[in-house]
């Protein structure tokens, strides 16, 4: 730590430049990360809503509905199907309008249709399922969120491509700038490095203070950028709450666990901080490693 501090004091403007470029990169990357996790969790949320809802005429029998449900299940395109009977529909209606007795008086379970809530395995199956259902006897209405999902999928894919491109550009630009600044810092210490080599220091020994300094800058810049993001998140949270009204929670299905994104929670923020710190430390140490290796070679 003492050596790192001495090195910062020795070249304060170069150190400031390293901090600023890392801060800029980590700040943008963390914002992108948070934005993408929100987007993906939102997509996840939309996909877990009933994708096709089919309402049946009053004349349709339960057997007829169950036969259709079984046919769909066997098609291989369905993730799950939920049957909602007239009584269940009435209960849902009652629950939704419990504060409005007038509305409750006007409706009985006979009026409300039975329905099937269908979740497809892939969004591309949705039009096929909807078309199939429309042709079935006893079907009154078919509602499916084709447009919303397909637009969201397209938007997500586009954003992902743009992000990959922008992110790659950002990483390459940052690495090159850091490489140049670290090279200046190394040049300032060339006599010391030469001396260390002459008295038998290994390459790792020579590299070590530069890598430690790079790690320090990586961690410090991610810490500062994270604090600014936390302040921004706290400021914008009420706006997000009103925007996302009706959505209880957003989560992202990762391979090993389900990461809760919304409402904002400590766990998600800690994960974000760890990822941004690791990214920042990695990019700084790689640039430093390349610079010192170029000098040692």
């Amino acid at each position, binding site marked *: 730590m003492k050596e790192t501090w001495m090195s910062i004091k020795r070249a304060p403007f170069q150190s400031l430049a390293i901090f600023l470029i890392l801060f800029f990169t980590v700040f943008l990357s963390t914002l992108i990360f948070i934005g993408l996790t929100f987007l993906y969790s939102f997509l996840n949320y939309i996909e877990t809503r009933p994708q096709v809802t089919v309402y049946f005429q009053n004349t349709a029998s339960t057997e007829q509905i169950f036969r259709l449900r079984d046919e769909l299940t066997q098609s291989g395109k369905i993730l799950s199907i939920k049957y909602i009977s007239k009584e269940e529909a009435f209960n849902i209606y009652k629950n939704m309008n419990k504060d409005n007795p007038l509305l409750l008086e006007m409706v009985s379970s006979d009026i409300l249709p039975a329905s099937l809530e269908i979740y497809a395995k892939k969004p591309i199956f949705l039009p096929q399922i909807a078309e199939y259902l429309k042709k079935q006897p006893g079907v009154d209405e078919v509602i499916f969120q084709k447009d919303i999902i397909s637009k969201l999928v397209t938007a997500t894919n586009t954003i992902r491509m743009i992000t990959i491109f922008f992110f790659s550009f950002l990483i390459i630009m940052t690495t090159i700038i850091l490489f140049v600044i670290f090279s200046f810092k190394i040049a300032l210490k060339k006599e010391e490095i030469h*001396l*260390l080599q002459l*008295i*038998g220091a290994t390459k790792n*020994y020579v590299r070590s203070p530069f890598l430690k300094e790079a790690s320090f800058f990586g961690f410090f810049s991610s810490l500062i950028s994270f604090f600014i993001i936390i302040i921004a998140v706290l400021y914008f949270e009420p706006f997000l709450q009103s925007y996302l009204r009706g959505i209880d929670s957003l989560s992202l299905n990762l391979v090993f666990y389900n990461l809760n994104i919304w409402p904002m929670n400590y766990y998600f923020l800690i994960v974000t901080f760890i990822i941004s710190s690791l990214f920042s430390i990695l990019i700084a140490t790689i640039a430093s490693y390349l610079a010192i290796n170029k000098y040692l070679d």
Partner: protein
Amino acid sequence: MISFDQVTKKFPLGNVALEKISFDIEENEFVFLVGPSGAGKTTIIKLITKEINPTSGTIIVDNFDISDKKFNQQIQLRRKIGIVFQDFKIIQDKNVFENIAISLKVINSSVKKIKEEVRMMLKFVNLTEKEKVFPVQLSAGELQRVAIARALIGDRKIILADEPTGNLDPKTAWEIMKIFKKIEGKKTIIFATHNTDIVNSLKKRVIVLKNGKIFKDLRKGGYEL
């Protein structure tokens, strides 16, 4: 300990720094390397530390054939060698203790060993009181004593001194020589210098270089050009 056999060093632009020179230096021998500027003194030192490679010939240092192109034990070789430079090469943002300790740190010595040996060495070069002082506050003579302490510490068998008195006044130069006298017979010392008084008064072996060749090799000689 050190053996040069028909060693030639030509630089890429064609100038010949050394031409077919041969000499042997025994273990714990004290040898002066003298000659005018450009005679090849520094080239010999750089060849011993393997900073540069010979164009032809064989160089053996402590049983290492460092002229062998497959030689890859540079770090082990350099850990046996201590170097004292004319311009001291003291790290400005480290204090006296840290500057000397660096020789032990590179060989991964324990903190306890570093403290013990550095303090012993500070006493040896008479700088005990200056342990925490930074280079900017030291005189040239004191800086060179720090450099000598750094070269001696860590049980280094060979000491290469490249004009260590070149930047010092005669009185200080003699103080530095007293330290070298104290280690005489305990380490192999190669001392490159221009200082006639020192060479003549110490009566040690003198290798005189001229135009990249050994002009004379005097067992108990003086400075002759």
